[in-house]
């Protein structure tokens, strides 16, 4: 019987907990991408850099707070700085929209023009971030590091396999839950939210019904910037902040949004978890799991690993290709690209 619990502990420690945290971070990122796609109808390649920019401001402000000795006990100080980061990211996207995207909106340019424009914006943000904070690793996580450690869990349960649960992982899941609930409430219950959905579903009809397009676009950008900053800060707290890594995150985030169905918020959340869990579960080595489940002495010699961890990103690519071939609209029937 203990074998079963050991297997459960093993899987929880190495697959479930990291998958939940990573999936939440992807889901928040994918929500921003999907919102912009739904309203402005283009794939915003600058989203990864937007995450990095928001996180950078959070980090800078956290340093100010830390220097003054302001903290919130066991939780990371960065949480207090989060609103400042969101505000900065919102300002940045609104200025960008005014200077760049509004011009193309007035000319009714095709989506591919926006897409290339967003690439240029990406490179600009890229430089801006490196100019301000530099290309290096920054860690600002403070407060209690663990909710419980592997050693504490082993002592408590008497199992040979431990489970560690970091504060930042718990925090990521909780913050994601709150943000996603608030977003869905906003989109489904408020008048502004409904007008956004109407605009996303059918632009012409929405315009005829008196929806103000500039206002919808404004709110979409604000939401995307807010979500990006939250996602980036959670990722930075849980793992590490390095501008280049946020650029790399763009691939799994887009994969999540497309797998879930571009333009569908619920799809973005589901897609985030699908990508996160498949990346982790497919590259995990199941040797010990089989050793516990099989009879004594039957432990396999090999690692029983489907794919080496080097191919983590390839997993997102493969899922993306399969979804585009089999069900181009994604799981939740979003728009086709």
């Amino acid at each position: 019987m203990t074998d079963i619990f050991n297997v459960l502990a093993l899987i929880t420690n190495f697959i479930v907990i990291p998958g939940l945290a990573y999936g939440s971070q992807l889901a928040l990122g994918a929500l921003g991408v999907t919102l912009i796609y739904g309203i402005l109808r283009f794939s915003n390649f600058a989203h990864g850099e937007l995450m990095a920019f928001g996180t950078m401001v959070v980090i800078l402000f956290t340093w100010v707070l830390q220097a003054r000795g302001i903290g919130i006990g066991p939780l990371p100080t960065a949480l207090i700085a989060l609103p400042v980061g969101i505000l900065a990211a919102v300002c940045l996207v609104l200025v960008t929209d005014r200077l760049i995207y509004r011009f193309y909106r007035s000319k009714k340019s095709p989506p591919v023009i926006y897409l290339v424009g967003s690439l240029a914006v990406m490179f600009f943000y890229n430089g801006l971030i490196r100019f301000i904070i530099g290309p290096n690793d920054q860690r600002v996580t403070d407060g209690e590091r663990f909710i419980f450690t592997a050693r504490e869990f082993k002592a408590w349960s008497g199992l040979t396999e431990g489970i560690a649960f970091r504060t930042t992982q718990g925090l990521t899941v909780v913050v994601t839950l709150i943000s996603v609930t608030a977003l869905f409430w906003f989109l489904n219950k408020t008048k502004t939210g409904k007008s956004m959905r109407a605009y996303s579903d059918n632009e012409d009809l929405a315009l005829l019904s008196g929806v103000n397009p500039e206002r919808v676009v404004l709110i979409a950008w604000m939401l995307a910037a807010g979500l990006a900053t939250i996602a980036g800060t959670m990722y930075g707290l849980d793992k590490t902040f390095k501008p280049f890594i946020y650029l790399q995150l763009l691939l799994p985030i887009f994969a999540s949004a497309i797998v879930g169905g571009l333009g569908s918020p619920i799809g973005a959340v589901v897609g985030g978890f699908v990508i996160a869990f498949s990346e982790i579960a497919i590259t995990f080595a199941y040797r010990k799991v089989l050793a516990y489940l099989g009879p004594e002495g039957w432990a396999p010699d090999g690692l029983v690993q489907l794919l080496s961890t080097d191919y983590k990103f390839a997993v997102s690519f493969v899922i993306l290709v399969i979804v585009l071939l089999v069900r181009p609209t994604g799981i939740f029937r979003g728009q086709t690209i």
Partner: protein
Amino acid sequence: MKKLLLSTVAATVLMSGVAAAEDVKIGVILGFTGPIESLTPAMAASAEMAMKEVSDSGKLLGGSTVTPVRGDSTCVDSAAATAAAERLVTSDKVSAIMGADCSGVTGAILQNVARANGIVMISPSATSPALSDAEDDGLFFRTAPSDARQGQVLAEILKEKGVKSAALTFTNNDYGKGLAESIKSNFESMGGKITISAAHEDGKGDYSAEVGALAQAGGEVLVVAGYLDQGGKGVIQAALDTGAFDTFALPDGMIGDSLPIAIGDGLNGSYGTVPGTDSLGADIFKDMAEKAGIKADAFSAESYDAAALLLLAMQAAKSSKSADLKGKVMDVANAPGEQILPGELAKALEIIAGGGEVDYVGATAVELIGGGESAGNYREILVDNQKNTTAKYR
């Protein structure tokens, strides 16, 4: 004032017509950005300290001065490193190169720039075994030992600590692969078992998947043949967080003051190896570095020695040209001759000028073997109370 004095001296020397004093330029190519950027400032400063010592003595080639010219090897980007070296050689016209640091870029610079232009390079920290048999036209030397030797030393330490099985992860480049192979073959020939030997990529945000695979393979300790500012740090952090491993064996790329501070208590009790000796020279160098305001870290002493060897070889060759000095490096580094410690470079220059022979011992008990690489003395490191402490010398 100093400049005026110096130029007066130079002018006097010139007028007296002893020799054609010149300004010798030496390239210092190290990874000022990239995975070992926390070590390189001290390495460069140490090398430049040796150059200053020689310059100030006024005894090199009848009063020549030495000017360092820095270039960024990036440690990992061979194209960028080659371009930096090319610039130093063709536009700055350096006579020789102190560098590069990481094995991959060092090999690239050697093949693409040094051999093409006939420039001598002495690396303080490239340790890949592959560089031992690389085609070098007699231009390449290193004051760091090959990892073939480090693998042996690290395997011995594991054996002595009673470790029977270990998991091994390495950074996916020449340095990591060469070192991992050496550790694996040595440890297994001593009867130990390497449960898994898996590569990790540098520059990722998250290493929990890599650690997951390592944890499933099992092992009493995790050997991390990576870089302390990069993936190596991430792997250790993730391994500690998930409770997969408690003890780590750390080769030289992971030894630096920043790592125990970044990781915290979890690293206490881990151990490692880094080139180093307990010779008199090591202590003298430490004092000198302290006085010069240099925070000596891993490979600082090797850097001082590399620069010193270049300059002594110039003196022995009576020329600052690489083509002349390349044959003299082994002569000044090894016996016979008067032993030279750090801070005695002026004395060494004088002896050589007088026709005598020197045996440069330097800060790391330099003894060049084979094709011109250090025989290899290692310092066994124990991480204790968030500090790298010296357990013993091997």
